[in-house]
């Protein structure tokens, strides 16, 4: 049956899509979530401010403006964003934590690699690398480039596409990250085969090592396989970060 490859991909698509976990509650704009509560809060604040004024308890000039009825409730009421579903970790990372992770605080865990389907004369490979934070809490920013190298050659930077859903993580002490590094390349032409345009001007051949650049230094990963050809640009490498 000539459809076997298509069916294989579609079966895999179905299987992966089935893994999605939807939020149990439907999204609602903030503006409609608690209009009565906002109104009551505003009225209460007005009453308090008036009462304090009457009793001669003066407030700082910034008090009413910063916390009064015209500020926060109005902002909340005008928002069209859904009720926040951010995780505490993500909030912490965006609001409090700005210490970037450095390479020396990570130790390498398990490395696995798996071939991809490949399409139209291409091959792909995905390497999953566990990274454990043995240092302090830090913020891991996914870099826009990674360095690749042959077994003995120097590292060279290449563009890396963020194929995941986030570009940074707050990493607690002792916590592990899982990074999936993917690459695709054109299959070598057979002698006498139809010539194809090279994927880029100066591809890097036989890549066996990748280095993830961080704030200080980089985490070097032995792929355990060989990527035939990687381009600096356009991107042939993807990164996905998982907590």
């Amino acid at each position, binding site marked *: 049956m000539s459809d076997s490859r298509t069916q294989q991909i579609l079966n895999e698509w179905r299987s992966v899509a089935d893994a999605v976990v939807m939020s149990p509650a439907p999204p609602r704009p903030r503006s409609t979530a608690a209009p009565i509560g906002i109104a009551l809060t505003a009225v209460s604040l007005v009453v308090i401010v008036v009462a304090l004024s009457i009793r001669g308890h003066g407030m700082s000039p910034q008090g009413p403006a910063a916390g009064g009825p015209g500020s926060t409730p109005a902002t909340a009421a005008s928002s069209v964003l859904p009720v926040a579903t951010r995780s505490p970790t993500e909030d912490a990372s965006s609001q409090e934590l700005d210490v970037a992770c450095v390479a020396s605080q990570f130790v390498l865990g398990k490395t696995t690699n798996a071939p991809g389907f490949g399409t139209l004369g291409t091959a792909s490979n995905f390497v999953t690398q566990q990274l454990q934070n043995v240092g302090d809490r830090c913020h891991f920013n996914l870099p826009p480039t990674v360095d690749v190298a042959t077994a003995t050659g120097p590292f060279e930077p290449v563009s890396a596409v963020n194929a995941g859903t986030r570009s940074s993580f707050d990493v607690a002490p002792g916590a592990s990250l899982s990074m*999936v590094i993917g690459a695709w390349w054109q299959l070598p032409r057979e002698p006498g085969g139809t010539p194809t345009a090279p994927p880029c001007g100066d591809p890097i051949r036989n890549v066996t090592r990748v280095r993830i650049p961080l704030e200080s230094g980089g985490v070097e990963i032995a792929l355990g396989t060989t990527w035939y050809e990687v381009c600096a640009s356009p991107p042939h490498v993807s990164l996905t970060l998982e907590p």
Partner: protein
Amino acid sequence: MEADVGVDESVDMRYERAYGRFAKDVFRFALAWTNDWATAEDLTQEAYLRLWNHRASIDWERPILGWLLVTTRRLANNRFRSLHPRLTAAGSARQGDESVSARWLDVRHALESLTSLERAALIMTAVEGWSYAEAADVLQTTEGALRAAVSRARQKLEVA
């Protein structure tokens, strides 16, 4: 396939019911159309926010899923790229383990050579069980064009 809502059901309950019944369908359609997990999550949220905003005026007796899918596709095409920051927490509906994540990257790569129409047409008819006529209606194309898109999609995937 559609919610059989009763006449006494409140609009809020209908909205929640539409979410419970169709959220995954909307996500899967968005995933098929965009081939991007995070964008599909965002589109799903945005499509339901649109439904919420129109909940008072919408005709709940008509197929809600079709309305959601058409809205999702329009959002993906016309407006969604300009919406920042993301409307949903990226981790809220993520795959639970690395094997799923790696498999998704693999599938995504395999489907990258298809256009949005080809990918959605193929997945809707071959995976989700939609008829060509139903899928063409949601994708706002003709049945003939949809069949051609499915055929092209299969050819592209088989050539490799």
